């Protein structure tokens, strides 16, 4: 893949940020800055191109191949551009038991793209991901950095409608378990200690 050589450097005007990232690690640990620098690029550009890989390699005094090796190891870095809304569907067991496979089929149908693809207009991309740690509120969709939990059919349709309009709805935060005050079994009241959160908010 050939890239134009006159790309504006990403970190040129971010020297202060780069210095701050490097300062988090000891001198012998300069390479530790690779992951935070990759995150910074991806946050702005939605993926990490080869030219950014070369820039990072230069900053941490290593080769582009080494940085590429790190980039390609981790599943949440992207080597190709993703959509404005990167829809990640958790497919692991607890989500599958709550309909993740059916939700995936629905999203494929609705968005016209499959796992790993980005829509032609760059609005949506779809990725099947492994457990994102929201098993108690399955099934879960992660759109960019935001979790949408207990996404039943209705919520999924509602979420898609909003995203199509270019809006990210506020997530309905749910935690289940001990924080589910309203459905708390009465038999457990005696376990509430003074100052305990139950019964508050």
């Amino acid at each position, binding site marked *: 893949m050939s890239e134009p050589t006159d790309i504006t450097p990403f970190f040129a005007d971010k020297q202060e940020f780069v210095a701050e990232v490097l300062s*988090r690690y*000891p001198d*012998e640990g300069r*390479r*530790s800055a*690779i*992951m*935070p620098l*990759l*995150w910074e690029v991806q946050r702005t550009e939605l993926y990490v191109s080869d030219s950014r890989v070369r820039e990072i390699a230069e900053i941490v005094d290593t080769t582009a191949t080494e940085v590429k090796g790190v980039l390609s*190891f*981790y*599943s*949440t*870095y992207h080597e190709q551009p993703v959509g404005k809304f990167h829809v990640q569907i958790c*497919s*692991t*067991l*607890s989500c*599958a*038991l*709550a309909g*993740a496979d*059916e939700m995936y089929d*629905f999203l494929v149908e609705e968005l016209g793209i499959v796992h790993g693809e980005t829509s032609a207009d760059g609005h949506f991309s779809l990725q099947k*991901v*492994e*457990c*994102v*740690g*929201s*098993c*108690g*509120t*399955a099934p879960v969709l992660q759109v960019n*950095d*935001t979790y949408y939990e207990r996404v*039943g*059919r*209705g919520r999924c349709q509602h979420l898609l409608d909003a995203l199509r309009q270019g809006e990210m709805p506020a997530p309905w935060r749910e*935690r*289940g*378990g*001990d*924080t*589910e*005050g309203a*459905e708390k*079994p009465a*038999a*457990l009241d*005696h*376990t*509430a*200690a003074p*100052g*305990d*959160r139950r019964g*508050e*908010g």
Partner: protein
Amino acid sequence: MSDQPTEGAKPAPIVSRHDPRYEVTMYRYVGVDGAHKLDFYRSHGGYEAARKALTEMTPAQVIDEVKASGLRGRGGAGFPTGVKWSFMAPPDGKPRYLVCNADESEPGSFKDRYIMEDDPHQLIEGMIIAAYAMHATSSFLYVRGEYYLGYERTLAAIEEAREAGFLGENILGTDFSFDIVMHRGAGAYICGEETALMNSLEGLRATPRLKPPFPAAAGMYGRPTTINNVTTLTSVVHIINKGAAWFESMGTDDSKGTKLYQISGPVKRTGVYEMPMGASFRELIYDFAGGPTMEPKAFIPGGSSTPMFPWEDRFLDMPMDYGTLAKNGSMLGTGGVIVIPREKCIVNALYNVVRFYSHESCGKCTPCREGVGHWLPRMYQKLLAGQGSLADVELLESVAGNIRGNAFCPLADACIMPVQASLKWFHEEYEYLATNGKSKYAKNDWWQA
């Protein structure tokens, strides 16, 4: 308390949350609006344990207290925490590190996430105490990349704590100085393995390291390092606050204190429940989670890597502690219980688990890369596509047996053990699928309104 113990006799330990002596500690403020702020934390007794440790105790006394409490690592392996801390090489004036493993990735586990989102100061306080005990000079909090809200809130909490003098130079006026650097992962289950996590932190591909040397001798950047799970560290806060005897008064012979159990799958109230060690699966599943919403046939006791049990009284009534689970051929793991309904084809469920480990295999060693990464998922695909035979089931068992115990790190066994357990308890479902070309259970729509 109605039944006061007789003079000299040790009171019976608390092994049920129904025990009136039991109180929620670690999970007390999760779910409370604003609990992630320093003001809230301090007005609810926050940082008093750190103050006590730093101003009234020596580092050795802190380690002794943690040892006496019986606390064992909450990440899954269950190694005694105080003992682990005592392995750190003596201070030599050079850097030494504490690393908090917040790369929570075991399917069925989601306890650390809510601590970081709703009560990050509790974790910071635990890190301060642990660092003091081990003379750590600095620390890294490695949080999985997906937990963005937890990252933001914990990062903000670290800044609040620094401004208030709980982090940085001369904490609480003592000569102890210490700080926390947050480092975001990027989606790699293998980082739960502590040496892989250190490689990741060092800007390498997250492959595990050969042990020895153990991290306590040569870890991060070759310096002494201890890696602890989030809720191991939050447990320490309460041990220091309330004393080792309080912690030790809960649980069973080999498992002390409270633990955050998680429950998912078809039950009425999924979520995280803090319970004393030794509470039974039945208490968690029925009394707290409200019972199954579909007819169950099995449950996974402690995260996807722990071998499942069939839905039988003898297993439901087992105390959730390290020893009992080990004795019964499984593990306590992270305490992430997953209920599997009858209508879910067990081969399909295990394919889901196998696919996860296949995706997460780091590629370092051959048994895992080839066996877990390629052979197992393909054999499951063949069976599920209706193209398998009984010989394939035998081959699956043989492949699993050849991988187990032969891989570089525990990831491969984490995949193999649940596969073998499913073959042990639900062999007839494999046979049915292999013989008939279709699953015994036909339900194919699990998505609710």
